[in-house]
């Protein structure tokens, strides 16, 4: 792999940028691998990368049924933060945030990680008390977190209506200044390129259609490009996790729901941080192109349609027009949905399954983009050793019968 740099840019300018090397190969599947990772989103690609880089695995394949990043990785609103309430979550998301901070250099690929700050609004006394409790709990875990008054919110994000007699008055906010956004496609591509350079076979248009299991042990996978043997298999397929579990004959505490987002027409810079409101379920930031990127809520029925209900869009835009009156003058250009894998406690499931050698990393639901590097790293460690990484251990599937839930549902209400 040739390194991207100012010199390679200059060199390629001489040939009118027509001779850039392909960012990754497109190999045919081999008959057997040490480890197969299913799912070419950020979490799967990152897992393959860390397996090769940190754990020395040379014989790894990543299988993706469509194209890289075509799942939730390429559909999300890219909010990155680590201000979670419970210790287990704080440790995992902060591990991810630390990796984000060096990711572009690590991958030699600009993931455009921008620590522009993530603000969470409080609209009523209950919100405000909860927010204060969270800010202090988060600080006790050594994670940056501040409180802003309404006047400070107005200063940081002037387009917001902080008038006390507005429909959703703003009492104040919390802010994590190390939080921000990143370019979702670049995360998938950067990991893919770096994994490929270390020998990982990245195989697109290769859908896993069955799992080969003998005597309770994984032996390989059936795919649309033939059967492939493997000693260990990691399933990282987000909204399709139950489908893969069904192939292995077990069920999981996961339901798949559509989650939507939309973008406005591009305008001049008006917002230089991310603002979220759990109470009205709005989150908004401005992309480098100038579009307002707006995240909505999820539908509450099971669906794999990648299409959300229109009333969700109507609800969110109504709320946003109240919070940010100038939005009523904007046109919404595109709208789309992804299928998110939601668990009862809104925390991910990472680790072993009832099948020996089959591991799962899912349940990231509405908020797993921020965790991409951390999730990938701890899952790679888990796959490499066959035992859960220290930070992944509390997120094991067995927490649902031991009762040790990590209830970020109650804690955060919303988890983007």
């Amino acid at each position, binding site marked *: 792999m040739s390194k991207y740099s100012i010199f390679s840019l200059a060199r390629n300018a001489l040939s009118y940028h027509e001779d850039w090397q392909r960012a990754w190969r497109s190999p045919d599947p081999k008959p057997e691998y040490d480890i197969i990772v299913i799912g070419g989103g950020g979490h799967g690609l990152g897992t393959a990368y860390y397996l090769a880089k940190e754990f020395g695995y040379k014989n790894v394949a990543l299988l993706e049924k469509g194209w890289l990043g075509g799942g939730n990785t390429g559909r999300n609103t890219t909010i990155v933060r680590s201000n979670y309430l419970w210790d287990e979550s704080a440790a995992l998301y902060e591990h991810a945030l630390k990796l984000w901070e060096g990711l572009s250099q690590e991958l030699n690929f600009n993931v455009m990680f921008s620590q522009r700050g993530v603000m969470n609004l409080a609209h009523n006394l209950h919100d405000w008390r909860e927010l204060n409790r969270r800010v202090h709990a988060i600080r006790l875990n050594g994670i940056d977190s501040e409180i802003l008054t309404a006047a400070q919110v107005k200063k940081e994000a002037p387009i917001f209506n902080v008038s006390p007699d507005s429909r959703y008055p703003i009492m104040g906010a919390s802010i994590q200044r190390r939080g921000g956004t990143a370019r979702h496609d670049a995360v998938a591509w950067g990991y893919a390129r770096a994994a490929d350079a270390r020998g990982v076979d990245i195989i697109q248009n290769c859908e896993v259609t069955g799992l080969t299991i003998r005597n309770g042990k994984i032996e390989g996978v059936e795919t649309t490009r033939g059967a492939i043997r493997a000693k260990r298999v990691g399933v990282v397929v987000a909204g399709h996790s*139950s489908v893969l579990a069904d192939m292995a004959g077990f*069920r999981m505490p996961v*339901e798949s729901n559509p989650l939507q987002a939309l973008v406005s027409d591009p305008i001049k810079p008006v917002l230089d941080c991310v603002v979220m409101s759990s109470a009205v379920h709005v989150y908004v930031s401005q992309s480098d192109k100038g579009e307002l990127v707006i995240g909505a809520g999820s539908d509450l029925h*099971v669906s794999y*349609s990648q299409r959300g209900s229109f009333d969700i869009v109507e609800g969110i835009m109504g709320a946003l027009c109240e919070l940010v009156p100038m939005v009523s003058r904007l046109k919404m250009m595109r709208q789309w949905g992804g299928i998110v894998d939601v668990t009862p406690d809104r925390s991910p499931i990472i680790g072993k399954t009832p099948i020996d050698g089959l591991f799962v990393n899912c349940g990231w639901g509405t908020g797993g983009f921020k965790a991409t590097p951390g999730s990938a790293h701890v899952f790679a460690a888990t796959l490499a050793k066959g035992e859960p990484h220290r930070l992944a251990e509390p997120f094991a599937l067995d927490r649902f019968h031991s009762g040790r839930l990590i209830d970020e549902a109650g804690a955060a209400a919303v988890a983007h």
Partner: protein
Amino acid sequence: MFLIDCPWCGPRQQTEFHCQGEAHIARPKDPDALSDEEWANYVFNRTNPKGVHFERWVHNHGCRRWFNVARDTVTDRILAIYRMGEKRPKVKS
């Protein structure tokens, strides 16, 4: 968004209804006899199929009554609507 044919009120917009999750999950007959794994299976595990899903809906902005729906989760097409307590109908997606 889809139209749902309430067995009592007729076709109405989805926004009038609320989906209450997977149907036909029977409460254990002898709860004391259940292991932790069996409890977890009852309380948390879900079928979550890509294809036909049998689920409960309530017409909460209408007659407020409950009923069952068989829906294809890929196309969102409703394949059957039937009353609480009735058996799963045979449907093809």
